[in-house]
C-alpha cells in the first residue's frame, strides 16, 4: 500500500508513517490536473491532542494541503494515515472548520450542529444521542441558550462558534481548521483563539490550524510548521513550549516571533535567488 517515497530531502520525508499519531502523512504531493504541483514531498505528523499550526503566505498551498490531509481531495502521490489506518475517504472523526462559518441558513443553530450526524456513512446514533451531542457541543461553545436561533440572526462570532460546535458534535479526533478566525474582528478573534485552545484540551482532540497570522500561530500552537516555496514544502518547524497564557510571556513570544520572521525572510531571499538563476538559463 506504501507508495514509493522520494528521498529525505526535507524534514521527515522518507520515514514510514507513524501509527500512534492522530494523523501521519508521508511523501504527499498534489497538483491540479494539467498544472504545476501545488505542494510536493510533504511529511506531517500530528500527535494526539496536539495543536499544529500550518503557517504560510497566501498561495503557498497550505489550504490545499489541509484539504488533501482531510482527504477531501486525493493526493497525486503519498500516503495519509488517520488513527493508524490508511485514509482513502474523509473520516467520520475528522471535522472541518472554514474561514466562513458556512452555516446552512434554513436550519437553526441546533440543526446546523447536528447536520450530517444522521448521514448513511456516519456512525449510527439514536435520536436522543444526537440531541445530547448537539446540546453538549452548543454549551461547550457558550451557545446553550441559542439552539433555536437561525444563522441570519447570529453575529459573525456566534456563527463561527456554531461552526466550531458543528465540528465538535462529530467528537473529532482531529479538527481541521482553515483560517477559521481571519474573517472576525480582532477582539472576537482573540476570544475564539482562547476558546479553540480550551476546547482542544477539554475534548481531547488534535487540531491542524492553517493560518497566515504569525501571532495566532504563536498564541495557539503546540507546534508551528512553516510552509513555502514552489511547489510548497514544509521548510521549518518550531516546537512552542511557551507556558500558557502566552500573552503573559512577552520575552519568549517576541523571540519566537523574530525567529519566524527571520525564517520568512530567508525563504523570500532564497526564492528570489531561485528566480534570478532561472531567468539566466
Amino acid at each position: 500500500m506504501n507508495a514509493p517515497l522520494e528521498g529525505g530531502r526535507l524534514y521527515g520525508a522518507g520515514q514510514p508513517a507513524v501509527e500512534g499519531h492522530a494523523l501521519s502523512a508521508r511523501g504527499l504531493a498534489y497538483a491540479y490536473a494539467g498544472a504545476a504541483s501545488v505542494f510536493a514531498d510533504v511529511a506531517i505528523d500530528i500527535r494526539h491532542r496536539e495543536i499544529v499550526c500550518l503557517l504560510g503566505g497566501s498561495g503557498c498551498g497550505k489550504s490545499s494541503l489541509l484539504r488533501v490531509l482531510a482527504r477531501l481531495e486525493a493526493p497525486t502521490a503519498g500516503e495519509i494515515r488517520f488513527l493508524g489506518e490508511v485514509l482513502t475517504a474523509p473520516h467520520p472523526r475528522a471535522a472541518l472548520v472554514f474561514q466562513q462559518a458556512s452555516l446552512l441558513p434554513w436550519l437553526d443553530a441546533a440543526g446546523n450542529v447536528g447536520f450530517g450526524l444522521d448521514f448513511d456513512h456516519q456512525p449510527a446514533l439514536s435520536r436522543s444521542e444526537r440531541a445530547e451531542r448537539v446540546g453538549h457541543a452548543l454549551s461547550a461553545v457558550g451557545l446553550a441558550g441559542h439552539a433555536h436561533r437561525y444563522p441570519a440572526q447570529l453575529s459573525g462570532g456566534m456563527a463561527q462558534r456554531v461552526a466550531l460546535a458543528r465540528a465538535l458534535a462529530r467528537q473529532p479526533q482531529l479538527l481541521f481548521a482553515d483560517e477559521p478566525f481571519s474573517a472576525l474582528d480582532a477582539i472576537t478573534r482573540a476570544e475564539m483563539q482562547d476558546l479553540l485552545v480550551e476546547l482542544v484540551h477539554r475534548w481531547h482532540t488534535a487540531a491542524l490550524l492553517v493560518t497566515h497570522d504569525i501571532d495566532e500561530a504563536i498564541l495557539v500552537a503546540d507546534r508551528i510548521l512553516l510552509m513555502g516555496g514552489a511547489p510548497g514544502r514544509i521548510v521549518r518547524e518550531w516546537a512552542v513550549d511557551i507556558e500558557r497564557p502566552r500573552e503573559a510571556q512577552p520575552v519568549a513570544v517576541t523571540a519566537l516571533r523574530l525567529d519566524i520572521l527571520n525564517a520568512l525572510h530567508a525563504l523570500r531571499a532564497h526564492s528570489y535567488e531561485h528566480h534570478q538563476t532561472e531567468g539566466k538559463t
Partner: protein
Amino acid sequence: MLRLILPLAGLAAALLLWAAGAAWLTQRMPVAADFAPLPSADALWQLVGGGDLWPHVWLSLKRVLVGLALAIAIGVPLGVLTGLSKRFAQGTTPLFQFLRMVSPLSWMPLAVMVLGVGDAPVYFLLAFAAVWPILLNTASGVAQLDPNWLLLARSLSATRRETVFRVVLPGITEHILTGVRLAIGIIWIVLVPAEMLGVSAGLGYFILDTRDRLAYSELMAAILLVGALGYALDYLARTAHARWLHR
C-alpha cells in the same frame, strides 16, 4: 408609524385622482359616472356578497396554481441542469433568452389550434410565461451554492442523494422562491388577457362580460378585485420567502 401612513397616503392620492378623472370624463359622457369610486365600491360590495363572482375567482386561482405547478415542474429541473452543466447552459441560453422575450400571448392562436378551446391553452400560456423566472433563478441559485456546503457534505461522506436533498435543494430553495414570486406576478398579469380568449369563465372573461353587459361599475370592481388578489398572492409568496430564511 410613517410606515403605515405613507402607503395609505399613496392609496388615498390614487383614489382622489381616480375620482377626479371619473368626474372629468362624466362631463363629456354621462355614462362614465359608473366608473367613479363610489359606484365601483358599491358594485364590488354586491359582487363579493353575491354568488355570481366567486366561481370566476376560484377558476382563475385554479388556473394560476396549475400554471405555476407546471412552470415549477419544468423550470426547476431545467434550472438545475443549466446551473450544473456549462455546456447545457451555453447550448440553451440564446434559445431561452429568445423565447423569454416573446410575449406569451403571441402563442395564443397557435396554442388554441394545437390544444383546442378550453383550459389547456390557458395552462400552456401561464406556464410558458412563468417558467423563465423560475428557471433562471434556479440556475443562479445552483451557481451561487456555497462551495463550503458541498465540502462539508463531502467531509461527511454524504451520498449523492444526501447531497442533493439535504444541501443542494434546500440551498437553492431561496432562489426558487424568488423565482416563484416573480412567476406569480407574471402569471397573474398574463391570466386576465389569456382568459379573454376561448374560455367562458374566469376573471378575464368576467371583465369582458361586464363590458358587454355595459355594467361599468362591475368592470371597475373586477379590476379592483384582480389587483387585490394579485397583492395577496404576492404577499403569500413574500411571506414564504421570508419564513424560509427566518429573517
